[in-house]
């Protein structure tokens, strides 16, 4: 499941009407839908590579056994 995780939960609180999502929602939805792998996607424009690394670490820490990757240019996923 490739899912828009543009905002952190804090950012989302002030921009709920922008039509973008957040990693913790992506993880709950992926669990509920019994998804096998989650891919974080549609990173915010000002996010640095280090920011995205930290967001991925946090997501993996809360995702338990659900495998999570963060999309980067050139990434390939074999199904």
């Amino acid at each position, binding site marked *: 499941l490739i899912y828009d995780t543009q905002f952190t939960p804090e950012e989302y609180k002030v921009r709920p009407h922008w*039509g973008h999502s957040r990693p913790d929602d992506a993880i709950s939805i992926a669990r509920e839908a019994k998804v096998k792998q989650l891919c974080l996607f549609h990173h915010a424009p*000002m996010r640095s590579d280090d920011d995205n690394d930290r967001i991925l670490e946090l997501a993996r820490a809360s995702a338990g056994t659900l495998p999570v990757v963060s999309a980067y240019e050139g990434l390939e996923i074999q199904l």
Partner: protein
Amino acid sequence: MKVTFWGVRGSIPAPGPETNRYGGNTSCVSVEAAGGLIIIDMGTGLMHLGNALLGGDFGKGKGRAGILLSHTHWDHIQGLGFFAPVFIGGNQFTVWGPGDSPKTLEDILEGQMDPNFSPLQTLRNFSATFDVKAATDTFEVMGVKVSSKEHPHGATTALAFRLEENGKSFVYASDVGYVSGMDGLESLFAGADVLLHDTTYRPADQETRRDRGFSSYEQACDAAIAARVKRLVTFHYDQDYTDDDVDSIVAACEARLAPHGIAVTPAREGEELTVA
């Protein structure tokens, strides 16, 4: 005048490891003059300029700037919807651009905000004032004398601008698709302290892209020589060029212009040039 380069790429953003040194954002340059801030073109580099401005008056709703717009192709307007200072009430912007009337230009920019293309829906969702004017031959922006001249750009035209303050002159001429000689740009360029000119292509690459309305670095150099300018700024590099490709274009310009005593400054994202 202090010129800062926020976006130097042509046609489409070109991010990636091969364009990190010159940068991948599209056309946007700022000019800090004694009278205030002038922004030239609103490509994706405008987002980074906007974020940098938030630390000053523009973050408090007390900012004022003039914006000069060469034409309305995507790579010259795409940053507008991501320019944070327009979402802060109290800031004031006036745009001068192409078109027979302010309404012509305002309708084009309004079209960019159409819900099919942008979540902003309309320019009226800006909190800042955003006045649109049609550029004339000469006008004044933030205390700076500005002259403009229309030139060919493929199937359309674009505007080049000359800014003068305290006896110093800066010319911005991007997306110049020469058709006949210098197409009347000689007097706009004449004796400029700094001529920023698009050096979009190597001559060989231009041969296969003739109708797109851009200059090769040779044409930019020839214009700099003919107009006896003091310094050429290379700009608007083709999206397919790596940093190493741009290095070779800059070196070729230096070799061509050195015998004429004309200096070369390559436009790179985040770098500054004082017009002196």
